């Protein structure tokens, strides 16, 4: 292997003196200091609001604008009659690199839909927010556009979303009552199947 010798440049006298360098450093920091200080003062007086004095966003009072392709918490899109668009094809479960999606499929009474998820859980404590699930879904049934960023909890259990929270992103833990009409398995019912298709039909009428 060829050896390449890199020589360090000798410092010049002025550089060794260090003082000019300190002064140029001070010039930079002072420029920022006075510019920002003046802007802060101007902002207090209601002036120059279009110039930002700092790059800081005062989250949560001032949320950062999200890019349109930003991946936030998942949601399941919903049909008109209040059932999920998802047909339980398990492609998202398959593609998920973190293996955090759990789907149990069931028979839908409409043979043109045929299949739907009885259970749909995402463990956000494990999810890596890659968005593959969204990309792979053939039904546009799962999206990451809820705009929810503040996913935090005191226990691993609470990081798990079930079909309620996925279908209704406005829901926050603790989810009060189980209001989904179609037969499904959720944590509120302790894993028991709850709901019936008659309820769905009557709700539509």
């Amino acid at each position, binding site marked *: 292997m060829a050896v390449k010798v890199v020589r360090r440049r000798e410092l010049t006298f002025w550089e060794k003196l260090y003082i000019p360098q300190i002064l140029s450093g001070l010039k930079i920091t002072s420029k920022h200091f006075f510019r920002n200080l003046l802007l*802060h003062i101007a902002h207090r007086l209601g002036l120059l609001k279009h110039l930002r004095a700092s790059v800081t966003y005062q989250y949560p009072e001032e949320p950062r604008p999200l890019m349109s392709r930003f991946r936030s918490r998942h949601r399941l899109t919903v049909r008109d009659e209040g059932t999920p668009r998802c047909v339980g094809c398990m492609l998202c479960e398959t593609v998920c690199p973190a293996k955090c999606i759990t789907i149990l499929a069931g028979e839908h009474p409409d043979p043109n839909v045929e299949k739907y998820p009885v259970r749909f859980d995402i463990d956000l404590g494990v999810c890596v927010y890659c968005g593959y699930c969204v990309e792979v879904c053939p039904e546009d049934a799962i999206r990451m556009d809820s705009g929810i960023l503040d996913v935090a909890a005191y226990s691993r259990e609470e990081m798990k979303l079930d079909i309620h929270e996925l279908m209704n992103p406005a829901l926050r833990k603790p989810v009060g009552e189980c209001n989904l009409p179609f037969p499904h398995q959720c944590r509120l019912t302790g894993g028991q199947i709850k709901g019936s298709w008659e309820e769905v039909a009557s709700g539509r009428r």
Partner: protein
Amino acid sequence: MIDVAIKLGLAMVVFFGVLNLAGLHTWIERKQSAIIQDRIGANRASIFGFKLLGLFHPLADAVKMFTKEDIIPARGDKVLHTLAPAFSVFFALAAFAAIPFGDRLMLGGRVIELQVAKLDVALLYIFAMLSLGVYGVILAGFASRNNYALLGGLRATAQMISYEIALGIAIIGLILVYQTLDLQDLVRAQGKLLGGWIPLWGIVVQPVAFFVFVTAALAETKRIPFDLPEGESEIIGYFVEYSGMKFGMFFLTDFLETIMVACLAATLFFGGWQVPYLMPDGFHFPWGGSFAVSHWTYVLMGVASFSLKVLFFCWLFMQLRWTLPRFRYDQLMKLGWLGLFPVAVANVVVTASVLYWLGGRN
């Protein structure tokens, strides 16, 4: 009796002012760095919804420090461990006694020097106090019974002793010029005008000494770029085993020393409480105009002038702290012994020669 009361009053004023400024420094530190770095800085602590630009954070800090558990290492030396931070703070505070913060005040026939302790050897006294501060540091390192702390203490000691020498020699030139160790006299001497126009401040007659002094004094405070004894997030230092208010005391010492250095810089090189062209009876401008002021106004203007100068230096040191990267230890030692020390000595020799040549005053 009244004399004692006056002295006590002065001491209280200095004590109050300095400690508050030190407390405020934690806020300045945060806010100034934030503004330099395009941030906002701590602004969340509030009382009844008032945030006051984050001014409550120092208060919150104090509450936190006082309520935190005070941990003494099981095998450490309990007495010394407790004594060390007290040493540090005590000597740092005691030094302020000799700083003159205004001209003499005539009150009811009394002459009150605006200086807690009028000492003939004020300068020596201050340096003695600052040197004693080393004990706090080395004791902290030693009493913690922690290898890292001990090494940190040794680093700090080596650094402080090395730079004290340059510091001491740097001001000899000043003493040669002004012929006094009494700070009040020294400040008065700076009130003269050079050629009728330029105030005869230390910076004018001893610019080299000023740079050496500021550099060495900053090194004494153990703050960036000289924070090798203890570098908050990355270098374990002598107070690693301290928690709660004892830790707070070391922190306070840092700020007190910074203020001390600012006071010294103002007093020695920037005319202390002098206001250019202001004589006890009013302004006498070199272009011939004059403007009389009352005695009280004169004294208060002096105090204000001194305070402003100190605040400026505090700001400058803070700015430096957020501008410069840290030295490496060998660079630090090299700078002290091979840079500042010879320069300071040369400064003394040159000053002495010039003075001798100027008129053989000595």
